């Protein structure tokens, strides 16, 4: 009876924690130990479990092995040409908490910024991981890859970073490009790109690569990729660029709380003018929201507290490829259809990609703005009516 109950628990656990995926997050054996159950009971349960799962008895050993495995996904985090802003953003996450991520969701076995160890033992540990976890570890890369001077512009452990990257990429289960430097080359790749820095995916071929651009990306977007993997045991759905759809599926323009002002033709003309105080649209002072795919408008920073536009500055497009050379940042974007010149409805959805406008048209926004305007008018009208009625009543009173 006891065994049956435990098996039911165990099946639940295995399903929840991903028995059917490569990496499980906790083990059945661990659970048994916590409940002070013997190894013999554990083995019996595995036999029962094999039957319940409908597997042939010959597979019992595999079930035992799976039930014993309690590995967290090993993460190797490399730093190339970068500023460590992505690491900093990563630890700003509060859902999930950074502590939960690094202690319970992943084994962050190699990361320059947080690791206790340094120098030779640290490099030795890396090489041990590359062998022992071959094909299983996740490679997170922060920073671009400088190629000139044979890669000598970035040396790590006495070796060119590009060599280290290639070595680590080889056995990776998949790769995460954290931040715009890893994803696109970043600030050091801006003109004239003095070190000839490129993205990780320009160097590494034939691997599943998740792009998580941003300078830096939003904390919960960075941990969200890990969270998705922890929850569902697989990498999140990606768009054609390799970005997780759930975080990069919308332009900031389409999710911006100031969109109704754009649609109503209400713009900030100069910083700190009356329109700035009223929070109108920043398009005319250079906002890149109309061509930037990111979650700043919906997820926002600090779990909804703000994002650059909400704080009065236009988006600089920091998650887009080559955004540094799309300067100056206070120049209005060309080719953006401005309000009251709405594109023909038939063109809806036919224009894609950044730099182009048209994927989502202002219809909803206009409605919203008009609604707000109408509400104000209605309220004014109502107040005027009330006032008139009161006057009328007073008039009547005095007449009587």
């Amino acid at each position: 009876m006891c065994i049956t109950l435990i098996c039911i628990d165990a099946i639940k656990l295995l399903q929840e924690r991903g028995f059917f995926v490569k990496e499980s997050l906790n083990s059945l054996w661990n659970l048994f130990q916590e409940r002070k159950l013997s190894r013999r009971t554990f083995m019996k349960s595995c036999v029962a479990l094999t039957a319940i799962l409908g597997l042939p008895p010959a597979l019992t050993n595999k079930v035992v092995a799976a039930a014993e495995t309690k590995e967290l996904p090993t993460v190797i985090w490399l730093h190339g040409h970068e500023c460590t802003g992505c690491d900093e953003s990563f630890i700003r996450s509060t859902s999930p908490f950074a502590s939960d991520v690094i202690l319970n969701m992943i084994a962050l076995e190699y990361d320059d910024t947080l690791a206790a160890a340094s120098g030779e033992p640290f490099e030795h540990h890396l090489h041990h991981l590359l062998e022992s976890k071959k094909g299983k570890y996740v490679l997170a890369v922060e920073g671009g890859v400088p190629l000139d001077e044979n890669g000598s512009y970035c040396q790590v452990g006495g070796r060119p970073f590009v060599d280290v990257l290639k070595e680590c990429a080889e056995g990776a289960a998949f790769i995460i490009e954290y931040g715009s430097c890893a994803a696109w080359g970043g600030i050091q790749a801006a003109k004239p790109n003095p070190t000839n820095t490129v993205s990780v995916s320009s160097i590494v071929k034939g691997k599943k690569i998740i792009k998580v651009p941003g300078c830096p990306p939003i904390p919960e977007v960075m941990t969200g990729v890990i969270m998705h993997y922890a929850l569902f045991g697989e990498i999140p759905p990606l768009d054609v660029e390799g970005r997780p759809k759930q975080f990069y599926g919308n332009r900031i323009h389409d999710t911006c709380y100031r969109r109704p002002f754009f649609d109503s033709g209400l713009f900030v003309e100069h910083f700190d003018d009356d329109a700035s105080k009223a929070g109108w649209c920043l398009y005319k002072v250079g906002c890149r929201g109309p061509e930037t795919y990111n979650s700043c408008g919906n997820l926002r920073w600090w779990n909804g507290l703000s994002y650059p536009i909400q704080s009065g500055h236009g988006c600089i497009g920091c998650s887009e490829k080559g955004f540094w050379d799309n300067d100056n940042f206070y120049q209005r974007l060309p080719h953006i259809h401005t309000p009251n010149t709405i594109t023909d409805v038939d063109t809806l959805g036919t224009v894609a990609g950044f730099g182009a406008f048209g994927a989502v048209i202002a219809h909803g926004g206009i409605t919203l703005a008009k609604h707000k305007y109408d509400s104000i008018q209605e309220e004014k009208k109502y107040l005027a009516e009330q006032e008139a009625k009161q006057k009328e009543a007073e008039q009547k009173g005095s007449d009587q």
Partner: protein
Amino acid sequence: MKRVVVDPVTRIEGHLRVEVSVDESTGKVQDALSSGTAWRGIELVAKNRDPRDVWAFVQRICGVCTSTHALAALRAVEDALGIQIPKNANYIRNMMHSCLDVHDHIVHFYHLHALDWVSPVEALKADPKKTAELQQQVLDTYNVSGLQPNDLESSTSAYPKEFPKGNATYYAAVQTKVKKIVESGQLGIFSAQWWDHPDYQLLPPEVHLMAISHYLTILDRQRDIVTPHVIFGGKNPHPHYIVGGMPCSISMDDMNAPVNAARLASVDESISLAKDLVNYFYLPDLLAIGHLYVKAGMVDGGGLAKKRVLAYGGYPDDTFTGISNGDYFKKALVRANGVVENFELGWEKATFTALEGEDLMNPDFLSEEINHSWFEYPNGETSLHPTEGVTKPAFTGPKTGTNKKWEFLDEEKKYSWIKSPTFKGKACEVGPLAKYIVVYVKVKQGVIKDPTWAEKMMVDQIDAVSKVLGVPAHVWLCSTVGRTAARGLDAQVAANLSQHFYNRLVENIKTGDTVVADTRKFDPNTWPKEAKGVGVLDAPRGGLGHWCVIKDGRVDNYQCIVPTTWNACPKTIAGEHGAYEANMMDTKVKIADKPLEILKGIHSFDPCLACATHLYNKKGEKIVSVNTDALCK
């Protein structure tokens, strides 16, 4: 004699390598070299850009001390163009600076430095009950919240919201988790460290458990310290600014406004939290650990701090007309501008040399040498001011090994991408320790006759800690422990600076002034054909300077001398070691191939190596390949 290499040095920003020659019989470090091993070329990227954008470019020099490079850039451009920012913008920028100071210091202590002092393995031996008792004892003994000015108490926060969870149940829970991690074999961030090093035995197990618990608490709370960046600048790291002030307009008429009462409430709460974390976690932990080290006689690692330190100071209380004209230093709440020599002899015998606004543009005061850096200067020049800087790379590779796999670097010749900045031809240490030494000496010697509340607080802090430790200031300050302690004290002042500027902002809004930007000179047509300016501040890692030359509405030359350039530099022409090297040579190493003391010493500077400067010559000619200057804050 054994030559030991540590590369990469971790728990820092950027890429750093150190090599030390240790006499194994005495543990004495005979020679040491520090090498910045990466170069990115941000200044070259900044060239020809719109000066109004340059804050965003150079901010990416570093994401750890994010916003400090943006602030230095804005100040340099505004100094060049003669722009005076509005009062509110000055208060807001100062708040963004001070909250970053607190954040950077506390994250450095718990997440970049703590694992040199405490170990999860030792924490397993602790008794959770005793740890709870220890926690209470530490709070009783090392509570220095009384050093804060009374009039900077929050008028809104009813009681401290964040305290250590000092009970046995909590410590047992953390210990159980640590145990599971250790037993799992997947040690994660705790992998491969020299946990068997005898220095970890210096502290009782309960200190280790308490500190590891606080590591986790602070990890999960630190982001709320920089909430002002998110309110005023939209995000963190890398918040947004504008030349001429701030983009975050203030209005009490609209919830759509970037700043209104509800938004100020978030800032207010963040400032109170910062004070709680500093007063109830950071300073008590720091002083408890530091006290044990001082008692054990471990006050080595002073190095260059004993001989010479430099700071710029800052936190202008009022808006200023410029930096190179000296007005910035006049308005500063922390007038740490200057150089102090020989503090190891005590403040009475130390020598103070002033550093004023005009000196920042004077090659006789500040210059950079390249004797041991992978560069050449033309015409046999040996030393150049940043505005005249020339960079011609001369990479010579390692002494032994290949470019693909270095063995040892060449300490006799060139060995770093970092240049050697000097003050009147001499190397200087910078950082919170330097800032404290300069202010302490200036006030004690009467150079500052009317200390501001912040300067007075700094002096009071030093005197109070000297009393707790039972040794004079120059003994404990000039050491690895002192460098780490000064950073904690700086965090307490910074938290109060946040409160000060928040109060001033609210007072000013109350008078009806909601202006945050002066955009009269935002249009490049209003600019002179040519202009140059300087922006300085004491960033979390020390004195930071940016020099900007503007020509025909574009950036013609851009140079930075960052704190880590001062501290991590190779030897000067005079053969003087930079601060990292001097620290290593003033540190005793117990086990040559496990140089934990070296790591501890280097980490006490909070290294930040991300950047590179001097990418083109003064004619603006592009130089194909380059150098690295250590970067940052």
